[in-house]
């Protein structure tokens, strides 16, 4: 009874007004203490077994609160909130109640915590971004903390995501989050699923839906097929898929809703890639992000186990890294030399048309085989797998199975001319936002490469972008695919391929073994390119199908 009446409200903390925050915090403090006292009195006075259950429930409630406080004390952009929630936690501990502590090592498992910006030490621009994000969502997620390596992109990303999830749009709010869950679940991305399950419930979604897609409305179930194809084999999308969704009588989608859904699906597919590609750790307040156990018991988190990343690995990599420092130093030099050469001899050496075409085909075919050697199937945890049926349907090696990815010519259907117009027509403003995001991601550069400054990286960025599109069968007539082979070495290709196609299989080893001399911020930059290129590729296929349906 005590907890029902004093529901804790966190939204006051999102205010920009410090006094509002203070009163909100004070309220939280009081209710935390009320609960703690209640719990203690229960323990002391009542020992009847029948109370065990209610006791456990209220303990659970308190623990959730404490976990949230822990998150705030670490991740709130407002200093006063950080300090105050830390104080509350401390005084709760003094009451003799066990308080949680964060698991893992910062926002990313791949990037050492010290490399990542600490909340509180950000500059004005970043602080504004953090505050915006916090105000909109009531949290500062790990994705944001990693992306802030590139604040210019982050701003556009957050704006787009905010618009997709919270602003005007044809789909109701809980549908949006549910679609996000569906999309993330395709890649078994428990991080995003957890995050959006919370949001989904918060906007009034029906908890029953979370038991599996078959419990959701028929309309959403219909979307499952598109989700599946889009995530793994977008080139197979036909106008029949679209027609099936739009003409399903009372369960049919409108065109505007469908475009919204497609944008959401592609956004979350690629965000899942980012999550795995950068090894994003679980949020502190979510399951797996904190523990109530004392520190000595375990020092690696659950996800590391499933990915085969024991802390032992790290040691090995480090020792290996020490040996090959000079080796990897040459790696960078060699890459730069290749870029210079390509730049210089571009005009002289002119490959024949057939040669160019076969280079593309070769790259496309080869991209099928590029895979990490350890092909062990990771069975998804039950929690996530219930959100999608048909777990076996994944990105499969098509050439090996005699399947052929048809070539999609960008010159005939490109984002700038066609995709943008279609999206903006059916879902106004979003076309503009995504367009900006693509532009920023594609053009982002600091003119640095590892330890070198003033390098024109456009060639490298274009190679990465086109390589990803090449994997999806998208061809640029005006690009020489021979460049890809020159610029991207095998370990890098393995990483790209894994992040884009089967992100759930990314391991820390893969992340560490490519571009060893490059900075973490540059690796995050690569990830941004990957996710945007992937999103564009999926969007192109989906939008082309919609266009074909419309004509």
């Amino acid at each position, binding site marked *: 009874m005590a907890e029902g009446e004093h529901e804790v409200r966190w939204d006051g903390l999102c205010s920009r007004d410090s006094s509002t925050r203070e009163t909100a915090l004070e309220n939280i403090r009081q209710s935390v203490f009320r609960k703690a006292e209640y719990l203690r009195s229960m323990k002391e006075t009542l020992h009847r077994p029948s109370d065990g259950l209610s006791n456990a429930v209220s303990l659970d409630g308190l623990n959730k609160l404490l976990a949230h406080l822990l998150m705030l004390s670490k991740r709130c952009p407002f200093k006063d909130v950080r300090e105050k929630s830390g104080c509350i936690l401390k005084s709760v501990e003094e009451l003799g109640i066990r308080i949680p502590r964060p698991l893992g090592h910062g926002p990313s498992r791949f990037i050492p915590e010290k490399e990542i910006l600490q909340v509180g030490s950000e500059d004005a621009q970043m602080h504004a971004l953090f505050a915006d994000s916090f105000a909109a969502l009531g949290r500062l997620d790990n994705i944001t903390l990693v992306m802030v390596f590139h604040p210019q992109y982050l701003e556009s990303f957050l704006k787009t995501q905010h618009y997709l999830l919270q602003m005007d749009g044809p789909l109701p709010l809980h549908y949006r989050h549910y679609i996000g869950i569906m999309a993330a679940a395709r890649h078994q991305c428990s991080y995003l699923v957890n995050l959006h399950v919370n949001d989904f419930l918060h906007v009034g979604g029906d908890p029953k839906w979370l038991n599996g897609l078959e419990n959701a409305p028929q309309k959403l179930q219909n979307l499952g097929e598109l989700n599946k194809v889009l995530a793994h084999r977008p080139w197979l999308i036909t106008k029949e898929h679209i027609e099936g969704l739009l003409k399903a009588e009372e369960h049919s989608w409108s065109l505007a809703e469908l475009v919204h859904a497609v944008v959401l699906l592609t956004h979350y597919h690629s965000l899942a890639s980012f999550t795995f590609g950068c090894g994003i750790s679980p949020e502190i307040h979510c399951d797996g992000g904190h523990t109530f156990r004392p520190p000595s018991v375990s020092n690696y988190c659950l996800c590391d186990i499933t990915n085969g990343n024991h802390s032992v690995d790290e040691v090995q990599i480090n020792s290996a890294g020490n040996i090959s420092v000079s080796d990897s130093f040459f790696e960078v030099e060699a890459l730069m030399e290749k870029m210079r050469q390509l730049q210089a001899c571009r005009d002289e050496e002119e490959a024949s048309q057939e040669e*160019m075409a076969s280079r593309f085909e070769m790259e496309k075919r080869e991209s099928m085989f590029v895979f990490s050697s350890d092909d062990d199937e990771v069975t998804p945890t039950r929690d996530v797998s219930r959100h999608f049926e048909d777990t076996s349907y994944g990105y499969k090696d098509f050439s090996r199975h005699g399947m052929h990815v048809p070539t999609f*010519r960008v010159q005939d259907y490109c984002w700038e001319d*066609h995709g943008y117009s279609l999206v903006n027509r059916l879902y106004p403003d979003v076309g*503009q936002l995504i367009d900006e995001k693509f532009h920023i991601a594609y053009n982002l550069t600091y003119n640095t490469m590892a330890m070198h400054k003033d390098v024109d990286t456009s060639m490298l960025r274009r190679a990465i972008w086109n390589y990803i599109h090449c994997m999806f069968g998208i061809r640029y*007539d005006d690009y020489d695919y021979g460049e890809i082979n020159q610029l991207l070495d095998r370990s890098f290709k393995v990483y790209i391929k894994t992040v884009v196609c089967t992100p759930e299989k990314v391991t820390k080893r893969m992340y560490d073994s490519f571009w060893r001399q490059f900075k973490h911020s540059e690796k995050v930059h690569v990830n941004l390119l990957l996710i945007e290129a992937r999103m564009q590729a999926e969007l192109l296929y989906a939008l082309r199908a919609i266009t074909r349906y419309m004509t």
Partner: protein
Amino acid sequence: MEKMSRVTTALSGSALTGRTMHCHLDAPANAISVCRDAAQVVVAGRSIFKIYAIEEEQFVEKLNLRVGRKPSLNLSCADVVWHQMDENLLATAATNGVVVTWNLGRPSRNKQDQLFTEHKRTVNKVCFHPTEAHVLLSGSQDGFMKCFDLRRKDSVSTFSGQSESVRDVQFSIRDYFTFASTFENGNVQLWDIRRPDRCERMFTAHNGPVFCCDWHPEDRGWLATGGRDKMVKVWDMTTHRAKEMHCVQTIASVARVKWRPECRHHLATCSMMVDHNIYVWDVRRPFVPAAMFEEHRDVTTGIAWRHPHDPSFLLSGSKDSTLCQHLFRDASQPVERANPEGLCYGLFGDLAFAAKESLVATESGRKPYGGDRRHPIFFKRKLDPAEPFSGLASSALSVFETELGGGSMSWFVDTAERYALAGRPLAELCDHNAKVARELGRNQVAQTWTMLRIIYCSPGLVPSTNLNHSMGKGSSCGLPLMNSFNLKDMGPGLGSETRLDRSKGDTRSDTVLLDSSATLITNEDNEETEGSDVPADYLLGDVEGEEDELYPLDPEHVHPEEPEYVLPQEAFPLRHEIVDTPSGPEHLQDKADSPHVSGSEADTASLVPVDSSFSLLSVSHALYDNRLPPDFFSVLVRDMLRFYAEQGDVQMAVSVLIVLGERVRKDIDEQTQEHWYTSYIDLLQRFCLWNVSNEVVKLSTSRSISCLNQASTTLHVNCSHCKRPMSSRGWVCDRCHRCASMCAVCHHVVKGLFVWCQGCSHGGHLQHIMKWLEGSSQCPAGCGHLCEYS
């Protein structure tokens, strides 16, 4: 080749003839271009490159320029252009960045002449100089434009746009050295061909890529541009700064634009996505296209006027793999389909309508408002003889004033504002609303409320309904008895209503009723002074209503009074039984007589049980308390709601729906409810009753209605210092890094209510601004703006 030149000579000189026709190509076309003799057209695409002769009745394939078996990307054309001086010379832009020239005079099968591989990315556009034989210009995705002299192996000069990609390049027709280029970032640049180092002029023409541009064939310096932002703009480049002269808003991104020959203000456009039609616009009439060609089934990719001096033939190529010749006389004219009739209500009930002149002329009964006010809106400009369809859509405008007070809707506004929809027990809501209705003289509505109360709040029902309900009951133990007492006074009330009904018909207007309600109010005042000693029976309702109004404000005070009220209630039914019983049937008869009965079975039907119930009060309660389930009335209530809605009183329908909530909702289908809600909200918003409409939205249970509140909740604000929009945060300006919400009067940061002028962005505390503007009409910030506070 010989054959071709023969064809050429045969046609040149004579006037063009032909018909609307099309031919099937083997593959989608990307671009087309016409030979200067107007007898041949070249079609280029990813896998097609052919020349067709345009004959009287059909297109005839003349030449296939794709030779050799192997497909080459050099032949995958993004653009093609035919030289306007030399009919043997063609140029294509390939998607792989190659520029190819073709010489039809070559004896071999392969007509390919020269290959320029200087561009690194796709070449989007090629353009020959209009008068110079050897000058070719290209614009590419890599951001460069190159000028080639065909007598040389490589480019003469390279122009860097300092931008990502060039979408179009066009030589000026009038100025020998000038060319225009358009860019993906929305810019248009003007270059002098002799000055490759920098552009002469640059301006931002569109938001997003500018896909195309075209110089006016006659007017020097007129440039039309079309962009992804769905606009076509006409610029005057002769002035110091490029001036936007016309702007046409189309429905899809503009892929090509071409001025129509011999028609100074006409241009043709086609779009890149979604829309397959070709439009010809008169730039002075930017809302309705002058002509429309609807032949294509997929996006039109290339358009060209067949002859530079003939305005009636248009050629087009499309992704649907057809080549079309359109004749202007066969075009469909959207103006014909446009509805030249319009009707609009003014703020004060004035009615204006526009109708075809011919219709209005024959109409005799109506007098247009004022002699001068009558003028056709489509005739504002002078008639252009070149305009092929003048007069098609001319309308006459008439304005009517309503007689004063005639259609007054003040009852609607009053009702909307005073009705209570939630927050109190059902019985109180009903009584309150009944009282409101009665005070406005709408007795039938008042009676309906009272009956609803009886139906849903009688004591026997309480146990069967939910908790909420019983709480409502618990707080007012005397209520069930008051019901009956309420009904008593209905007799006279009804009488007055039916009387009014007869005189007024269905209008329910207040003008006549006002006096009666006025008397009610005065009586009510008396009533208060006299306390429980009630003289006139029909006033009882008001007394009780008054009590209800007090009730939530001061419950402790009212409670002790309740017994006082209960006592007379016991007495009254007995006294007035005789009066009551006849009133029921009388009412029924009246209803039957009145002109609007058709849909009123609901009302009469719902009256029946009530009538029977209050003939003998104490018994009647027992009667349906015990035996009738709450659902018994739901059909009647539903019919009643339908009846009101059909009569146009959607206010009543929605109000009842909200007040009764769960009790009736399930009986009425979602769609109807939604329909009522939207109509009512629309009405409320027309009367600027924003608060009420918001409350209704909030209280509605229909998902599609309640989400109305969640849409468009953004408020855009400008910084009061630099007057720029504040994009990221609403409270501090990015540019001047100052807090924007400062009170202009007291210079403190405003927390809470902030009022500001939409004209100059200054504002402050509500109180301060109000006070300031009482004394001065100028902005308190001293910016000189004349602010208004209303």
